[in-house]
């Protein structure tokens, strides 16, 4: 079943990435310094008004995209690299160590993603870098489990047997035959985990675990804005809209990737769905 390409989602993601990269060009103000009177309404001297300390909301939103998106990509790369490494290593080593690693991955699933991330933040100490690290680390076991099961299913295919018959070593097989053949699955798992990293980071920051409320980040904006729900609803509604649009876009791109590209092994889609639901 082919799905239509999610144009709206793609356009939004591109806009968000370009807008965040060009943040200093889009606004004359500083995201941390006040630009006007506190809690100015929309359409006054500042485009979207100001927050409780007089900082320009538009400026904080575009710089916030910078922090949130780059943090999500960073966290997702930690998850993906760690997951690929551990998943392939488990499959490659085999034997008792493989079973131990799988037990560990499964046990980690017993601690919901958010709590695991909070555990890591607790260990490293509150702060924005530890939020990123925690969101990245907490995805590794789930990702590794997926990579492991995919690698096992590729391993049973005839061309692997052929390569082995030609004398390919195990490590060589994994790096040059199995890994490249996993790229479509990795792309769609990766998108799923990018969505998880994004949700994780905004949620952890919403809970105040970044420590510093002046950081321009969408989750932090939600957290600080909620005290001014009645006087200045735009302080939470606008970051809320930005977060929703981004997460919905990532998910619909992920869904499109999984229906479009992963067709030959139909079990994958079910598995991807399950992980999406488990991750959140």
């Amino acid at each position, binding site marked *: 079943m082919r799905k239509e390409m999610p144009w709206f989602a793609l356009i939004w993601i591109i806009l968000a990435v370009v807008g965040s990269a060009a943040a200093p060009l889009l606004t004359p103000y500083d995201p941390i310094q006040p630009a006007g009177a506190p809690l100015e309404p929309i359409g006054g001297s500042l485009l979207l008004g100001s927050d409780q300390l007089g900082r320009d909301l538009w400026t904080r939103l575009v710089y916030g995209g910078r922090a949130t998106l780059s943090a999500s990509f960073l966290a997702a790369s930690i998850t993906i690299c760690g997951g690929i490494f551990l998943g392939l290593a488990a499959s490659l080593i085999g034997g008792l160590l493989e079973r131990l690693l799988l*037990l*560990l991955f*499964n*046990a*980690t699933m*017993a*601690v*919901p*993603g*958010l*709590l*695991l991330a*909070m*555990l*890591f*933040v*607790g*260990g*490293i*100490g*509150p702060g924005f870098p530890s939020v990123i690290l925690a969101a990245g680390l907490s995805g590794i076991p789930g990702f590794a489990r997926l990579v492991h099961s995919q690698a096992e299913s590729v391993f049973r295919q005839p061309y692997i047997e052929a390569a082995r018959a030609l004398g390919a070593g195990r490590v060589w097989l994994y790096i040059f035959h199995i890994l490249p053949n996993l790229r479509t699955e990795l792309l769609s798992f990766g998108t799923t985990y990018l*969505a998880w990293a994004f*949700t994780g980071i*905004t*949620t952890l920051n*919403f*809970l*105040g*675990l970044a*420590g510093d409320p002046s950081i321009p980040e969408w*989750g932090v904006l*939600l957290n600080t804005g*909620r005290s001014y*729900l*009645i006087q200045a*609803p735009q302080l*939470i*509604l606008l970051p*809320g809209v930005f*977060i*929703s649009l981004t*997460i*919905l876009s990532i*998910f619909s791109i992920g869904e499109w990737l999984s229906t479009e590209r992963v067709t030959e092994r139909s079990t994958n889609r079910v598995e991807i769905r399950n992980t*999406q*639901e488990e991750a*959140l």
Partner: protein
Amino acid sequence: MVSTINRTEHRILTLIIRTFGEALLTAWAAVTLTFFALRATSGDPTANLLAQGLASPQQVERLRTALFLDQPLFTQYGRFLLGLFKGDLGISFYTNRSVFLTLAEQLRPTLELGTLSVLFMFLFASMLGITAAWWHGKPAGRFASRMADVLTTLPVALVGLLFLYIFSVIRQHSTRPGGFNPYSLLLPAVVLGFSLSGGVARILKSSLREVLKKPYILAARARGLRKNGRLLWFALRPALPPAVSLSALEIAYVFSGTVVTETLFGRPGLGRLLVSSILQSDFPVAQGVITLAALFYTLTHFLARILILLIDPRLRGEP
């Protein structure tokens, strides 16, 4: 005949015992993971306390002795496991009280919120799922289906903030003095139940749609049964097992939702306790809450799997 029944029962019993064994193993591994993850990432759990200036070096030294941090890692781990069996989770850095008692105090509000939100989850999920399947392709069905999709992706915090905003606007116009306060339990439970309902609604929708396409539904309609409540009831019963099994698994995840909801609504509970203990570097409390959550998850997951085994005979498998 009798022997077949006995064999089936025997097989189920074996499966239950095996599931129980796996659950025990998972619980042990999860508890171990909790123990080592905190230590592996921090090195020394008292370091943050010292760095943030929350304790003097002498106090930290005393804490280290009290927590056996001056002893080898495996001795600490042994003491932790032993303490867990005795219900002793250590002493809070911050309040100097037993972690076990602190957790026990905060358990009730979280249990209340969790239970009520699960009820709301069932309510919303069946509303959305049935609407989406019954009026498939029509505006109402499309709306419900889209809603379920959006709910599975949106973080709880956003759904909660939106509800909070809408209700505070309504409340501005009609302030009823005293009496019932919807913010304390009802609204948080509605928010959490609503945002958890997406996944279950999706499963219910797809399994109900499968059933509605079956020939015997067509036959029933051909016999003159109109598309009304009776037909729905008729179709719903075979459609339920997958939805029930997913919602049983979903319950295991309620706890991470309560963390956000409790913070959002300023409700006391284990979730709030966890957030504040992390911000204060109150390491034994954070460890205690997450250990409890892992044990809770393993228990509900175990019960869910048993439930699924009992509901769906196909999963019992052949020997």
